[in-house]
């Protein structure tokens, strides 16, 4: 598998505290990695380092030259005073032809929103627009930072479903910070638990049983995760539906 980004032993220090402590992570082509961790665990910082807009104090980051990265940030509050159409927002600072816009709008189901002003869009629509923007230029890697954080449950479900579709239909890697592990459990290939250092990482089914995962998120979370798993050889007491 081709490696597109790898960070080895990176450390980021702010105000004498290690935000990231000796973190190593690598993203391969066709990967789907979900990073989990409590607030302030350094998840966003790790993304920033990997994308190359923050240089860690220690450690090395190797990125494929000219790697095309699409970034989907957290939801934004759109300023009412700034009049801008969705289409214009999509193409702001981007070189893109009409055909590609059409295709991406179809893919992310935002065709009917293109002529609307951004500030009237709902939370879910806005997230789809951000996703659409990140797809412009045919990225090899999508980086998402808690993309569905402020959506309601059905909005989250719809968003992750769309993300899965895009992951299946395009050849790209996904690196995502998200608390909604249960929603991507079936698709994500690898889970990384971060609390300044990497506590545990691996396939979701294995990670959620890791003692480090349990100590980080508590028993409840670990048990809840167990419900979403497709395995059949574990013996949690909540796992009584089969």
């Amino acid at each position, binding site marked *: 598998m081709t490696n597109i980004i790898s960070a080895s032993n990176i450390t980021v220090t702010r105000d004498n505290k290690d935000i990231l402590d000796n973190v190593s992570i690598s993203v391969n082509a066709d990967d789907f990695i979900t990073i989990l961790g409590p607030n302030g665990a350094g998840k966003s910082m790790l993304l920033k380092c990997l994308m190359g*807009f923050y240089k860690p104090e220690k450690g090395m980051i190797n990125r494929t030259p000219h790697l095309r990265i699409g970034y989907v940030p957290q939801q*934004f509050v759109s*300023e009412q*005073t*700034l009049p801008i159409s969705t289409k214009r927002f999509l193409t*702001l600072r981007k070189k893109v032809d009409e055909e590609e816009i059409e295709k991406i709008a179809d893919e992310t189901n935002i065709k009917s929103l293109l002529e609307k*002003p951004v500030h009237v869009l709902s939370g879910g629509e806005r997230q789809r627009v951000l996703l659409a923007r990140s797809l412009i230029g045919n990225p090899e890697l999508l*980086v998402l930072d808690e993309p569905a954080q402020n959506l309601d449950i059905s909005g989250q479900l719809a968003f992750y479903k769309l993300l899965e579709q895009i992951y299946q239909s395009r050849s790209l890697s996904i690196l995502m910070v998200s608390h909604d592990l249960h929603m991507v459990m079936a698709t994500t290939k690898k889970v990384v638990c971060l609390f300044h250092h990497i506590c545990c990482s691996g396939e979701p089914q294995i990670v959620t049983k890791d003692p480090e995962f349990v100590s980080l998120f508590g028993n409840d979370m670990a048990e809840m995760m167990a419900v979403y798993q497709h395995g059949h050889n574990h013996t949690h007491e909540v796992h009584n539906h089969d």
Partner: protein
Amino acid sequence: MAIIIRMKSITMIEQFIIKALIAGILVALVAGCMGCFVVWRRMAYFSDSLAHSALLGIAMGVMLDVNHNLSVMISCICFAFFLIWLQRKKVFATDTLLGILAHGSLAVGVITITLLEQRMDLHSYLFGDILTVGDEQLWWLFIGGGFVLTALSLNWSSLILMTIHEDLAMAESVRVSRLEILLMLLMTIVVAVSIKIVGILLIASMLIIAPAAARQLSRSPEAMAIFACLIGIIAVVSGIYFSFEFDTPSGPTIVAALAAIFAILFPLTNFFRKT
């Protein structure tokens, strides 16, 4: 001042008016474009405070015998950096800090100007005196205003993207903190070159009212800037006319015209607008 002007010949008056019109239109253009960012980025209070601190700059300029435009810019830049430094300390909220700095420096500025031996027309600095704009001031406006407009248009898309979503802009390699400093610098230029026209106390309204009135008419950021400029020009021309006709201070007359345009446009556009 206006009385003296009236005693001179008609051609002289015409010259004054033409200069006033050119100056006013230039200010309307610069303030219209810059003002959009003031409205979008909620910098209204900041721009007002910056203008207040300009009086101290004028006092310094008189004391040190330096060009007012230059001394105002320097004092405004100092003000801005002092503010950033205080913000980093995180003891008070920004609006509290702005209140302290703005009114503190305005007060010290007024006292300094009053104490200076030279006879200075404080009134004209506070409220503007567009009918006494000279050639030198026009050059300052041309060059300063031209610089502001060029800088804004060169960075237009990046500025808009970072206004909509700062993280997204950063991820797409927009140098956000550099552009923030640029905006601040441009603001000091706008303040410095337009003091003579609208006066310290009313610069912020010049920046805010025209874009606010233009908002309801526009569906794109560029349209809003263009409408803001047009509204500003209408206000400046009618303001100069009334100011000359009724011998009222130019700044308040222009701002009153702006407010009137806003008062007419806002309910009208709100009524007819569907989305």
